[in-house]
């Protein structure tokens, strides 16, 4: 896959050129490309003067990073304790069935990524599902279906 890496220098600009900036730089790259392309990791290693192996180690240690491309819409099902006891498992299964992927996977058309997240801190509204940065509380098996459907529609509508 080809990517436009012209954004990288701009990302590097934002932080001091020290190894301590590694995580921040990777986070910005993740935000920009929705994953960490190999080339970007190599550039980061060179720029911050951090061994490539350390960059790889850090990018596989933290949940925030993904080495595989993610979908345009990242659906994150909160499986925090409260969501869990209020039925997040069922929501997860429902969404997995609807999108025909498992949690952690991305649809073939790169439109949706389904993820589980440990807790988004909106426990009072459990169970919670986040679509990109939008949080939706009080999700049930029935309205989870609607959520994905509307999301799919708006996607189609825009395209």
């Amino acid at each position, binding site marked *: 896959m080809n990517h436009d890496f012209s954004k990288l220098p701009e990302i590097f600009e934002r932080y001091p050129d020290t190894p301590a900036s590694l995580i921040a730089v990777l986070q910005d790259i993740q935000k920009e490309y929705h994953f960490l392309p190999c080339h970007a*990791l190599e550039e980061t290693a060179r720029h911050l003067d951090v061994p490539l*192996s350390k960059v*790889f180690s850090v990018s596989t240690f933290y949940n925030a990073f993904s080495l595989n491309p993610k979908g345009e819409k990242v659906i994150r099902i909160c499986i925090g304790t409260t969501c869990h006891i209020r039925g997040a498992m069922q929501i997860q299964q429902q969404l997995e069935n609807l999108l025909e992927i498992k949690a952690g996977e991305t649809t073939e058309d790169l439109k949706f990524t389904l993820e589980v997240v440990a807790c988004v801190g909106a426990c009072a509204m459990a169970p919670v599902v986040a679509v990109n940065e939008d949080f939706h509380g009080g999700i049930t098996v029935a309205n989870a279906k609607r959520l994905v459907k509307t999301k799919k529609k708006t996607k189609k509508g825009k395209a």
Partner: protein
Amino acid sequence: MVTLTVNGRVVQAQEGEMLLEVIRREGIDIPALCHHEAVEPFGACRLCMVEITKEAWDGWTNHVTSCLYPVEQDLIVSTHTPKVNELRKSVLDLQLARCPNSPEIRKLAAEYGVNETSFESKPDADNCILCGLCTRICDKMGFNAISTVGRGHGKEIAPPMHEAPPDCVGCLSCALNCPTNVIEYSDVNGKRTIWGKQFELIKCSECGKTTITREFAQALSDRKGIPIEYFEKCDHCHRKELSLTMGQVAGWSKEVQS
């Protein structure tokens, strides 16, 4: 100097020394799989755990990894209490579940009475116990070619992107210090292969014996200013050369004398 007691023996130690050093100096055998003097103590394998207490602690005891615990005045250390042995046994039981086929782990576990793990064995087991010695030694040598990848139970040791590591020079330090000998390499026909990367071994310009890899020699030359020619001969031919040079000087003086 610090005075402490190890298994009832009063011993002296330097300030800042770790308990493990003192214990081993006393000739007491305790296992430690993630420890190597070349690198900082790590505290991952938990086998070097000992019980510590002090008279002033009123019977309170603590279990610490001796590789990481600095000596303290009046410390009372016990290396083989029933609880310590149980801890080691438990750790070895768990390690055996991870690496059921490792002869090294099997042997050590058997010493603590574990012949088969009481847990479910890892189905796709390799013999890596994730002690991290390989990566830490690699880092210490300044090559940083490999690292831990991922975390938790799925953690592994791998080169970046799981591809041939660009920074590896084939020095073999990772493989030779692996406590379970899990890192594969081969030296065939003047070529060394490790981590999926191939290296040319230097052939002695005199006898043709292979020595270290060219990349390693180049790195040593670049970083330490050692003339690259030094690496062209094997140690044996170097000795022969020295013998002849000295012999020449000696022979010359012999002639002068006579």
